[in-house]
């Protein structure tokens, strides 16, 4: 193998899907990256935490063939995105799927607490960060008439609740943004998948306010996401039963919902 930063090109008999995972170093991102590597995908892994990112890359590439490349990056630094994206696509030898996983959650810590700085950061990472990455990628996929965009939203984006207005907003915005992309891109053969996880046992969960029922392991969430990707679904809840729970929650009338402590 040469000193090249690029992965070995695919051949007809060693075809490879190429994925870009943004927010790959921990939790669901790491679990999904491991899963994709196991399925033989080529991966570009982007995350802010350089040490964890390199460790994950090392772990994936330890079994012989180099499948993963690491790109330390903070998604709130939106100006870096176009050049970094170009480098990634060049190193991967193309791009088939992008998974936007990066997200932060800073609960205000009470129904009477407000913190604009935290809210702004959540919107900057969860929504603006996603838009900064997915805009040029949507443009590429539309022109290539192929590709898949996966955005990790949240059940928290389905309703504005008392506990965490900033987080709800960032995820609801992301859902709407992904829906708009879906409406634009489906006609060009591009699939846009919105994933809405319930509670997943990650670092983020430890910060969550209140009860966290039905929490699942990140590996289970990664399996669900991978299956939804393969089936080119549009929206998927993980685990699946959140679809029913959220169906109910979405239909609670406002005159009741605004009196609830949930």
């Amino acid at each position, binding site marked *: 193998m*040469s000193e*090249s930063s*690029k992965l*070995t*090109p*695919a*051949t*007809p*008999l*060693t*075809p490879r899907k190429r994925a870009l995972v943004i927010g790959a170093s921990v939790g669901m991102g790491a679990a999904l990256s491991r899963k994709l590597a196991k399925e033989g995908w080529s991966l570009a892994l982007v995350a802010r935490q350089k040490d964890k990112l390199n460790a994950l890359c090392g772990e994936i590439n330890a079994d012989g063939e180099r499948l993963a490349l690491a790109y330390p990056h903070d998604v709130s630094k939106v100006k870096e995105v*176009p*050049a970094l994206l*170009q*480098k990634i*696509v*060049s*190193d*991967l*030898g*193309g*791009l088939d799927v992008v998974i936007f996983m990066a997200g932060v959650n800073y609960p205000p810590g009470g129904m009477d607490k407000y913190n604009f700085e935290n809210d702004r950061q959540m919107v900057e990472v969860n929504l603006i960060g996603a838009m900064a990455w997915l805009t*040029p*990628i949507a*443009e*590429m*996929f539309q*022109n*290539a*008439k*192929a590709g898949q965009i996966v955005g990790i939203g949240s059940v928290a984006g389905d309703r504005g609740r008392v506990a965490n207005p900033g987080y709800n907003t960032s995820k609801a915005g992301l859902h709407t943004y992904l829906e708009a992309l879906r409406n634009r891109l489906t006609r060009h053969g591009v699939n846009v998948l919105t994933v809405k996880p319930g509670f997943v046992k990650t670092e983020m969960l430890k910060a969550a306010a209140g009860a966290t029922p039905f929490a699942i392991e990140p590996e289970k969430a990664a399996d669900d996401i991978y299956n939804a990707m393969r089936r080119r679904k549009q929206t998927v809840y993980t685990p699946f039963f959140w679809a029913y729970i959220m169906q109910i929650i979405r239909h609670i009338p406002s005159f009741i919902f605004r009196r609830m402590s949930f």
Partner: protein
Amino acid sequence: MFNTFKQFENFGHSLNAPGYHILARTTDDIQSAFALAKKHGLTVTARGAGRSYNDASLNGGGIVLELSAMNLIQSWNPTTGVVRAESGVTLEQLWQKVEPDGWWPPVVSGTMKTTMGGCLSANIHGKNNFKMGVFGEHVIEFTAILPTGAEVTCSPKVNADLFYAMISGYGMLGIFTSVTLQMKRLHSGLLSVDAFPVPNLSRHLSALQDGAPDHDYIVGWLDTFAGGGSLGRGQIHAARYLHEDEDPKPQETMKLKNQVLPPYIFGVFPKSILYQFMKPFANNLGWSLVNLAKYVASLRTHTFRQAHAAFHFLLDYVPNWELSYGYGGLIQYQSFLPKETAEAAWTEIIALSRKRGLPSYLGVTKRHRPDKFLLTHAVDGFSFAMDFKVTPSNQSKMREMLFEFDKIVVANGGRFYFAKNSETTAETALAFYGEETVAKFKKLKKRCDPNGLLESDLYRRIFG
């Protein structure tokens, strides 16, 4: 720049790689593509008609510079038969220009869709390789732009090292902008074709070898499904040009309307949808029946006259035939072997393919002679091309088998052709080229392209 992103495929539809698409209309566009690549830290690959079976014109995540719009025939002299054409001119344009005046391109591929740039890059051969050599042997001179920005003119006398390396160089040293070629004189629009069967590989190869001196073209079809005593059976088509007095109406037979391939089969059925009807046959059973039927039909020995275009461009006879192979597409495995070892090696290869249950659907043989281009594929011997259907379930088995083929071919002094084989590794290439050739090529690469701007997926696979 993101809005130029486009999906590119190879001819066999077996591999795709997206890249930034730039359509060059002038030589200035080529210069600016290099400048753009340098600015963005990207690489450039030239693409003509995209007719190679592998990754020669693919550049995943990089710039794909399409030259098909630079398609002007700049000059044509019907007295001397010398033509000068831009690199995006196709063989189709070329022969249609020169044939009515009584000339024919001395070397053509099995499809007329290939561009001059592609023909030079791969240094293509035809069914007359044993007699007329490769495409590059008929080049008087060419012009090209190197990644340094330098514009060069090369001929066998001027810049000879570049001449012999850029032709056969798969666009890895520079981008062709124009070529001056010598055409071959015709005395008729027809060829006289002898068709006869051969019962086994030994007779097949000796028919190619013995038939070659008396003919201008020779090609064999090999029934890849036959084993045992019939292994290597097939049919030979050997053709020769008509002499001056043989065709009573040369002006008539040379007319373009008597050359172009008909769009209908049996006069009524549109060929453009024929590939759809081939799909049900694109499996082991279907193609074994096709091969059997073809062998039975070939048992009749006969001689007939055929138009040049119909004889040469078999791959264009059914448009989009390659789509009949379905989702995974097809790959071609072509090996070139010296005449002394060919029979033993291919006996082993065909037997192995039968044993593994991975039969080739179509086998084609040719007679060859060596040439002095740097990355040459030809040998004093024969070539055997095998088409394989790729499916998700046969990929890894087939790859393993092709690596075994590679070992057999290299051990027998054989070579490969980079317009065809897609799985050849850097190690295998080093083994058949030899270290000296590879070192010489890499040295030239450094000289022509110090910043490493010209790269294709093929380049990365073989020289990366």
